[in-house]
């Protein structure tokens, strides 16, 4: 197509702009719709450089991104560009383009759709995202600082409680001993909550580095079983494995996997009525390994299921009223699972129980 050629009337008045640009940036054709948008005539645009239609930022982006894409890849889609109208105002548009070989070299055919309102909305979205990101990082920083500050006096309290309990002179009464033991238990529990907060803030601030290696699935599950059995006994539950052996390997960070399974298992035990059974299973599902913990607890209502992975969301007590904690365990666990290329899913029926499944890539 040569500059100045007559355009098909449908194309000329189409509901989008059309622009043909050669490899040197010279406009070979433009339709009336686009000419009207930028307040010029077709004649004033054709045979001129495409730069005259672009804002300065648009020129840089055209040169460094859109042109190379069209030249080397033959097409580009949904590229945002600000055009510059004759009156100096910027006109936000979306551009799709394909390149075409002609007798005179390559021509890039561009379709141009104005997006004034969407642009406004996108600006607001981007601004809102920046604000949200800043708020989130300020929150993580705050959590991290506060937690570190809390940890130091707590360590002192714990240390002195331990010293007192030794009671070398044997002068403490049983009652005093019970009280000190409670102080010690509370400081230990509080320290674990602080570790959770630090873990959570740490994951969001500076990503904890994971050491992803192939691990025998059986070893992973057996280790979790050992740790959880102790807790199950404490809470008067039974932990059962089925099947009792699992083949194959899983890919992940050993410490992170144990942390996740311990969290899922502890929750299951916590929410189980006394004497109930908690089931630990492991299966290979295609290229994934699924390790699940199922309980016979109260279950989770559908409208709560989406929220339980959000930080600081806690569900009500469970049968034994032991729903204490910060509500960070599942948020941390899911973040960890995802950063290992896996995920955590949940299936729950109110009144029957819940099953949390950790899915991880199988090791090849």
């Amino acid at each position, binding site marked *: 197509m040569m500059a100045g050629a007559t355009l098909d009337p449908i194309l000329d008045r189409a509901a989008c702009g059309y622009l043909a640009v050669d*490899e*040197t*940036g*010279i406009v070979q054709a433009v339709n009336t719709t686009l000419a009207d948008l930028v307040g010029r005539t077709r004649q004033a645009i054709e045979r001129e*450089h495409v*730069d005259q239609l672009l*804002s*300065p*930022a*648009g*020129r*840089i*982006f*055209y*040169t*460094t*991104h859109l*042109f*190379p*894409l069209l*030249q*080397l*890849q*033959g*097409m*580009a*889609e*949904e*590229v*945002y*560009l*600000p055009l510059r109208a004759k009156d100096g105002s910027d006109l936000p548009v979306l551009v799709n383009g*394909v*390149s075409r070989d002609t007798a005179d070299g390559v021509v890039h055919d561009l379709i141009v759709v104005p997006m004034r309102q969407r*642009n406004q909305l*996108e600006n607001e979205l*981007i601004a809102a995202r920046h604000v949200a990101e800043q708020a989130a990082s300020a929150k993580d920083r705050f959590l991290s600082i506060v937690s570190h500050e809390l940890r130091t006096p707590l360590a002192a309290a714990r240390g002195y409680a331990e010293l007192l309990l030794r009671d070398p002179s044997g002068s403490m009464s049983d009652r005093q001993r019970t009280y000190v033991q409670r102080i010690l238990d509370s400081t230990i529990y509080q320290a674990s909550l602080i570790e959770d907060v630090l873990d959570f803030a740490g994951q969001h601030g500076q990503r904890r580095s994971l050491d992803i290696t192939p691990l025998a699935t059986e070893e992973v599950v057996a280790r979790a079983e050992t740790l959880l059995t102790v807790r199950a006994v404490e809470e008067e539950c039974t932990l059962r494995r089925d099947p009792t052996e699992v083949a194959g390997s899983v890919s992940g960070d050993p410490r992170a996997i144990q942390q996740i399974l311990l969290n899922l298992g502890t929750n299951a035990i916590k929410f189980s009525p006394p004497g109930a059974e908690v089931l630990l299973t492991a299966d290979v599902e295609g290229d994934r390994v699924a390790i699940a913990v199922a309980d016979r607890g109260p279950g989770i209502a559908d409208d709560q299921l989406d929220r339980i992975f959000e930080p600081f969301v806690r569900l009500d007590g469970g049968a034994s009223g032991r729903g204490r904690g910060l509500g960070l365990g599942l948020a941390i666990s899911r973040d960890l699972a995802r950063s290992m290329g896996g995920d955590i899913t949940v299936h729950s029926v109110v009144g029957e129980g819940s099953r949390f499944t950790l899915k991880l890539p199988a090791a090849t």
Partner: protein
Amino acid sequence: MSTDVLRRNQVRVFGKGTQPMLFAHGFGCDQNMWRFMTPAFEDDYRIVLFDYVGSGKSDLSAYDPDRYGNLDGYAQDIVDIVRELDLRDVILVAHSVSSMIGILAAIAEPDRFARLVLIGPSPSYLNDPDGYRGGFERADLEGLLDLMDKNYIGWANTLSPMVMKNDERPELTRELNDSFCSTDPVIARQFAEVTFFSDNRADLAKLEVPVLVLQCTDDALAPASVGAFVASSVPRAEFRQLAATGHCPHMSHPDETIAVIREHLAAVAA
């Protein structure tokens, strides 16, 4: 460091010659931008291509916002590569922002570089009240960063599906490459900031290695006065005006670009 550098920067080495010709891509692209040029030189030179960390198929996990927060970090990529391959007598062909990156690398390791071929160089894109005309006002360049943010929304996502679509349209598979321009959007934005807000005018005089400046006609990014500024500020520089228009003559006018570089290399060899 060892082979990690080669993997990190997706270094490719080929060609039948012995003298290394190292090609450094510009902002927004990767080593694929040289595909029209390298066939003309691979019989006579040892061609070395790479992607900066954060671009193309480089190892994105090696991206450190502090290191790549200025052009020195990018120059260190070049230095790492020439050291790793123990390259000497290097002809560095650099496009756009890579011109300044290459100059910084050659100032750091002058003994390894024979000469630099700079395509569309600019030591500073901002107009300076002192009279230097980089071509852009601060607001223009901030507009570019907004524009990059805007294109984030779909940038990373639209590029890979595009390739699949091309597979169904054989007429468009010409020069297709699945990684082209598929940089991480956050990294691309920081690269834009570093590229367009750096001022390396003071470094030009420190360069001992001889330079060929290729200046395009009607370059939207690097006006002719900027190319002339580079040529007059670098102690040993030759200035060549190309008939080619635009900012990417190695993609739009490879024949002329190749001819001028060959002629120059032949002249200095004689």
